């Protein structure tokens, strides 16, 4: 009965490769996010989708392409991976406009070698 689930939990890959992280929520929320947490634990929003529509894109390189096939899923595809992409990526969801809590997944740790 996991609320927000991400796969994979760990991802180790070489520079230049393309990889995807998947996220699904079963909370019935209409808004989903991708956050990036760096090695110093600083958490920064990357994207936000509301009902499959992109509403926030926080100056993320266009190598990162989110895709939302429906409001319960938000995937993140990363092209031409760079060393600086190494981080933990968190998916989160909420109900838009309620200014309430975010529900986070367990994170996907990406290591680029």
């Amino acid at each position, binding site marked *: 009965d996991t609320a927000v689930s991400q796969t994979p939990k760990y991802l180790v890959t070489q520079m230049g490769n393309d990889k995807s992280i998947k996220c699904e929520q079963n909370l019935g929320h209409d808004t989903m*996010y991708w956050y990036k947490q760096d090695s*110093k*634990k600083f958490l920064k929003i990357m994207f936000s989708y509301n009902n499959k529509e992109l509403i*926030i894109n926080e100056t993320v390189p266009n190598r990162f392409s989110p895709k939302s096939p429906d409001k319960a899923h938000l995937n993140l595809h990363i092209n031409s991976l760079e060393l600086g992409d190494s981080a933990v990526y968190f998916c989160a969801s909420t109900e*838009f406009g309620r200014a309430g809590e*975010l*529900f986070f997944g367990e*994170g996907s740790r990406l290591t680029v070698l």
Partner: protein
Amino acid sequence: SQQGEEDPQALSIQEGENATMNCSYKTSINNLQWYRQNSGRGLVHLILIRSNEREKHSGRLRVTLDTSKKSSSLLITASRAADTASYFCATDGDYGGSQGNLIFGKGTKLSVKP
């Protein structure tokens, strides 16, 4: 840019003691939230306080908000080893044109020794 700034960066206490963490922010807010992150896990929401509230309680947690000083504090009373985690404040509001997203601070790492 970063909105919240927690203080201290790290805090080590004995079980049973109280832990106080502070958060300062820069722009006006609609509400402020606190989250906990256990090592290797996702963030878990603890409490939300609205801009027109000054204090809020939830179990062993007490949060205060001073909008004139743009600061908030989180007090954990009678701490337990299981409270060991990083604690983040997050603010919401019409920030940088990206209304609706949360802006997180860098967190306070709390260690509670048994």
